[in-house]
């Protein structure tokens, strides 16, 4: 079991007062696989994300993350920054949250905070410019440079992140999350607002992250072409519960899924059907 799935969500519930946003949700995300979490607006996808990444404390259920070495961490017991630091789960946000006043390079350097903090001897070694710190900093810049060239932003490394075009900001946010060297990357609607060409580039980027770096990916997505193209496994949610699960093809033809999309949003239902043909 531990070899198969990296994340296993079991009976997850999240209530806000009387509102049940997520009700008894269970699913597994495969190791070195891309798992997509889809569903109509308001289905509770982002709430699941916030529970996994520690922004919400779930009302019930368990979220277990199993690392490559077999160590299992219960994510619902950790909070905010520890999830990223100890469990190595990184995330992006639905509405991009870069550091707009810092350069693209600086954004990627901030992401390596914990590594650099250790290398700088909690600042003291760094303050006196110790050689060990200097080499660690050089390595961090090198990693940032690698990611900048991977997302095609090397030319704009020294531009403020807030000045980059929307699509570039999306990619930079993914690169920033990847600079924390995560085991699981959670992407909240990475293709939102991208044009067809940018979406294709994004799919390529995500596939390369999975195959070359072996990072598992969990993503929420509305853009069905992206979901169908790259996902290994799809989980469909509606009204806080799982209504279907399986390969992209199986989910696409599931009448319950089509009904959920038709009932919620006609456009999205059409998108689902069209992407199948």
């Amino acid at each position, binding site marked *: 079991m531990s070899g198969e799935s990296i994340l296993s969500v079991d009976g997850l519930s999240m209530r806000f007062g009387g509102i049940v946003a997520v009700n008894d949700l269970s699913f597994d995300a495969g190791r070195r696989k891309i798992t997509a979490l889809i569903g109509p607006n308001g289905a509770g996808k982002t709430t699941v994300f916030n529970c996994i990444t520690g922004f919400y404390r779930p009302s019930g259920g368990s979220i277990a993350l199993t690392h490559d070495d077999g160590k299992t961490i219960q994510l619902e017991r950790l909070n905010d920054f520890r999830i990223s630091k100890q469990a190595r789960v990184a995330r992006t946000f639905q509405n991009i949250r870069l550091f707009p006043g810092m350069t693209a390079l600086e954004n990627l*350097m901030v992401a390596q905070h914990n590594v650099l903090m250790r290398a700088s001897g909690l600042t003291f070694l760094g303050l006196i410019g110790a050689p060990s710190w200097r080499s660690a900093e050089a390595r961090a810049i090198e990693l940032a440079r690698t990611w900048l060239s991977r997302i095609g932003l090397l030319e704009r490394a020294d531009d403020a992140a807030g000045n980059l075009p929307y699509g570039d900001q999306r990619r930079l946010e993914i690169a920033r999350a990847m600079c924390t060297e995560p085991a699981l990357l959670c992407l909240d609607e990475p293709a939102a607002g991208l044009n067809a060409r940018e979406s294709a580039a994004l799919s390529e980027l995500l596939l390369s992250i999975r195959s070359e770096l072996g990072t598992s990916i969990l993503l929420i997505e509305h853009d069905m072409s992206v979901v169908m193209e790259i996902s290994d496994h799809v989980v469909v949610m509606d009204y806080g519960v799982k209504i279907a699960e399986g390969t992209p093809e199986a989910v696409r033809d599931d009448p319950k899924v089509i009904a959920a999309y038709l009932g919620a949003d006609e456009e999205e239902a059409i998108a689902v059907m069209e992407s199948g043909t």
Partner: protein
Amino acid sequence: MTASTLEKKPAPRASSAAFILKKATISALVALVLFSLMIGVRTEAGPQGGLIYWTRFGDLAAIVAAVFGGSIVIELLRQWWGPADKVRVVPPAVQHALSFTGRLIAPTLLIFTFLVPVIFYDQRYILDLAILVLTYVMLGWGLNVVVGLAGLLDLGYVAFYAVGAYSYALLATNFGLSFWVCLPLAGILAAFWGVLLGFPVLRLRGDYLAIVTLAFGEIIRLVIINWQSLTGGPNGVSGIPRPTLFGIPLSPGEDGLAARLGIEFSPTHRIVFLFYLILAMALLTNWVTIRLRRLPIGRAWEALREDEVACRALGINTTTTKLTAFATGAMFGGFAGAFFATRQGFISPESFTFQESALVLAIVVLGGMGSQLGVALAALAMIGGFELFRGLDQYRMLVFGMAMVLLMIWRPRGLIGHRSPTVYLERNQAISSDLVKEGHG
């Protein structure tokens, strides 16, 4: 965006003239109502105690006419200048020239500062003023870590200044410790108070944080006033030892520095020594801050100012990051406080009122949050300018307030609003202030 500005450009002249006239008329009417009683009618107590009054319609008419004319002039100026929030494109040549002079300002200012005691050796007033300015530069740089870099609005910075000053004063007068031993102790104690303040306020943001820090500043002052047995209460602490040059006192006695060097003693020696002392301390503050900005902790401060949620998602412990910002800023404040105590030789709670916090915060905001050079320039302008307007008596505050309002309209993000990146691959280009966040607590 461009299309809409193009459409708007050929606005009909007649309507704009009518608009100006309408606006001027309304302003004149408001002025008429306001000033009709304030200027139009003059009242005074008569010889028998009765009220006598007379009218001054001529003056009133002049004022209203001035408002009418002034309103037209301002409106014309505004139309000529364009909307205030419009982003103006500065030609690259001008930008280049500006950045060139900008790069020259700091070294020039530094060299000039080093030469101040040489140039103004005979002018005690200027030397004292220079020491005062440097003290505020140091305080500004210290607060800049908290407000400018970490984006935490601290209205009680004077508390750390007070902790530093009283630490030195009490340690020196009670235990006879020398300035050089007390200086780090004062910094450490102030940093400790910074952490102590930090803990309860970590969850607060923005306005709430500002109010709690304000209260903390007042609490420290009230404790100092009321803890008579330790601090001497409102009487303060007097007889604080003067600093020595690593053990050699700057006094006229046999073992004084002047006697040892075989030169004639002059009280100016001590002033010059104090000047270089605070200059060295301020430069150390600056150096440490510049270094810290390039270390992960400094980048985390700035990232915290930009987006706290994203910081948490990247595994940054926002609690300790905020605490280190508070502690670092407080430590510099403590150093400055110790210097203040040794310079004055006497301290009392009156020196640590809210006004000091407000002044230091004004220096940071005016200078451009996060900019070291901007803070130094702002301290010079604020403290120096305050002295410059001394001749204006009670209008000093008015003139000063007006100047600040104008400056904030002209440069809403401070004298130096842009941010320079801490690391770069190819080009070290400044980041426009429009993109840099101010932080929200």
